[in-house]
């Protein structure tokens, strides 16, 4: 039966659905021979879930006529981790540790939307300290830069622009270094907590942030020089994956694809949260709703994020020593971290207080850390503008110490529904460009 004598795995077999080949690379000749004379042009190709250019474990089922895609479908669920279910078995604060892992390229946005929802249910939205708000905005905007850098880098890699990839990851590393300075971790921070943020800014962090902004102002123009007018780059991106405003709204697509249609919808402006109304920045739009327009929107948004980061740094310079957690001791996380001689750990002052000075403080600490606080019954939905679009957590409480239900409206999940309409009728090679232009992160899609 096998038509290929060289590759044991890439053989053909007859099934009720027709002839099936397993393609392993560089074996197209054996397949075209195996199809023989008079074979029909229509073939169905399974791309993924283990394909390097599908952004993780995304499976595409493509029906092809020659090189033209006649039908494109997505298969998802390969990274389903049950995070939403797990959150129902942990306290409200521990929920942050889970949801930060969903869309792993924009962890702070997952944390922020969840915490904003919990804070709304707790009715403490007005009590979040200013410094915590500014730090949240700072981290989210740095995160937007790092996420857009990955989007541009991987998108470039997939069309063969390897230098765009290397410079993209070079700059992203700088952002991750800043995250490590501020939160202690490069990813999966669990830093934004209900009521504020986990820790104050460490000494010297503002200097690092300012140095980063200065460096990025030199390096961001490199991306524009590489790509904006590059004829090969434009040739691959322009006119690919087009989706106009009506299509975006019907399919629920938000974020850069929506703004590339020319519609300036950005939740930071239209429905501000965390004090975004106090910052000066512009919503970036573009006039071609294609992959190129989305690329330019992302590039321009990084400049706007740098503007916001600068404003955050200026405000934080005047907030030295201000609280970063809500004053309500029934909500605020009791323990504090500090740098000791052996690295970061529990603050020795706090340990001394609860272990040596106050039994009540020990009970309070124990209750809040093990049992957690109670959240009044109800439901909340507070969306934020993540790098990929509208991200929101539907948080339901039954009055207990654990979420009754937490559902995340992840923009990657929704935007992926545009795959069919963006790819069908185009070339196979443009499918990858179209999907890269909506920048799906499978951790967020499958949750």
């Amino acid at each position, binding site marked *: 039966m096998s038509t290929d004598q060289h590759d044991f795995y890439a053989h053909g077999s007859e099934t009720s659905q027709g002839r099936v080949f397993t393609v392993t690379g560089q074996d197209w000749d054996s397949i075209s021979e195996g199809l023989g004379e008079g074979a029909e042009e229509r073939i169905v190709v399974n791309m993924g879930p283990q394909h390097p250019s599908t952004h993780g474990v995304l499976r595409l089922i493509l029906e092809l006529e020659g090189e033209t895609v006649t039908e494109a479908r997505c298969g*998802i*669920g390969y990274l*389903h981790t*049950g995070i*939403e*279910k*797990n959150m*129902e*078995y942990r306290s409200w604060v521990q929920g942050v540790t889970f949801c930060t892992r969903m869309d792993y390229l924009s962890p702070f946005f997952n944390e922020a939307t969840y915490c904003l929802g919990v804070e*709304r*249910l707790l*009715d403490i*939205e*007005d009590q979040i300290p200013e410094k915590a708000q500014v730090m949240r905005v700072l981290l989210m905007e740095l995160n937007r830069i790092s996420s857009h850098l990955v989007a541009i880098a991987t998108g470039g890699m997939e069309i063969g622009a390897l230098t765009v990839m290397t410079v993209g990851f070079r700059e992203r590393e700088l952002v991750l270094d800043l995250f490590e300075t501020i939160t202690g971790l490069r990813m999966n921070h669990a830093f934004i907590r209900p009521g504020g943020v986990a820790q104050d800014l460490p000494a010297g962090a503002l200097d690092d942030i300012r140095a980063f902004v200065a460096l990025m102002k030199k390096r961001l123009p490199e991306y524009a020089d590489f790509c904006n007018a590059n004829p090969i780059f434009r040739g691959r991106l322009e006119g690919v994956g087009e989706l106009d405003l009506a299509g975006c*709204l*019907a*399919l*629920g*697509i*938000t974020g850069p694809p929506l703004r590339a249609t020319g519609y300036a*919808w950005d939740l930071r402006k*239209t*429905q501000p949260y965390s004090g975004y109304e106090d910052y000066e920045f512009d919503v970036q739009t573009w006039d071609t709703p294609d992959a190129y327009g989305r690329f330019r929107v992302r590039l321009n948004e990084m400049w706007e994020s740098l503007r916001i980061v600068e404003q955050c740094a200026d405000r934080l310079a005047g907030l030295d020593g201000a609280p970063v957690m809500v004053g309500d001791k029934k909500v605020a996380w009791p323990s504090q971290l500090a740098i000791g001689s052996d690295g970061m750990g529990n603050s020795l002052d706090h340990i001394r207080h609860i272990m040596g000075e106050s039994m009540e403080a020990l009970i309070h600490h124990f209750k809040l850390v093990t*049992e957690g606080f*109670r959240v*009044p*019954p*109800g*439901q*909340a*939905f507070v*969306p934020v503008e993540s790098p990929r679009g*509208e991200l*929101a957590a*539907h948080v*339901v409480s*039954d*009055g*207990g*110490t654990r979420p*009754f*239900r937490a*559902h995340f*409206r992840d923009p990657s*999940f*929704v935007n*992926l*529904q545009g795959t069919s309409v963006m790819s069908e009728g185009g070339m196979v090679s443009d499918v990858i460009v179209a999907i890269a232009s909506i920048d799906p992160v499978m951790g967020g899609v*499958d*949750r």
Partner: protein
Amino acid sequence: MSDEKKKEFGTADNVRVTRDTPGTRAREDEVNAPGEGGEILPADATQERAVGVRRGMFGAAGTGDTSGFGGLVAPVIFPGATQRPYGGWFDEVADALAEGLAGSGLEQATDRVVVHRGEITFHVRREDLLPVVRLLRDDARLRFELCSSISGVHYPEDAGRELHVVYHLLSMTHNRRVRLEVAVPDSDPHLPTVVPVYPTADWHERETWDMFGVVFDGHPALTRILMPDDWPGHPQRKDYPLGGIPVEYKGGSVPPPDQRRSYT
């Protein structure tokens, strides 16, 4: 979004245990004043909605609970129906919706409106869901053109309405958000699909079917989306354990987390 924070129903402090037997549910047919949309209802206990019972205080059951609070029984009470005026633009939306529904003879379609924490929720009867969302999308005064999210919530003790499906709609034209909530019984978990109105609902409804077992009648291809096609059960339901199945690998078997250690 709203200047209407917390003028409405309440916080945990006014969770009143007014019923003689805990867990007696305030059915909405008691709440439902027939016809008149704007009528002020008496603010009595029937306004609240109990959806379950909480036992004990610390989550531990059986001999594990040495606190002395194990016998505590309290109803879980959600924010009840809100009376007019709702405040802000909520009344405009409610008026436009009521007028549009009256035009097509569906005055009873929204049987309860809850305003809580600056968000408005319309509880919609399932048979009227499609005309309601169509009106919300198409009416110039409503214009909710984007369906942001659809998901389910399982209230196993809310008898006769165990499965709730929650729709979050966004009007970019007016910069407003509303929530629709439809409750269906576990024994008959059928709901009309909203895909003809909002194509984006496709995957959301597939996920809600996958996770809760809610059947969306008329959906173009209601198949599982996150779990494998042949998966038994619907994992996000409250009666589905965390972990659920043993992991089998090379002849060995690791029990599911819920059987390794108790989390309840």
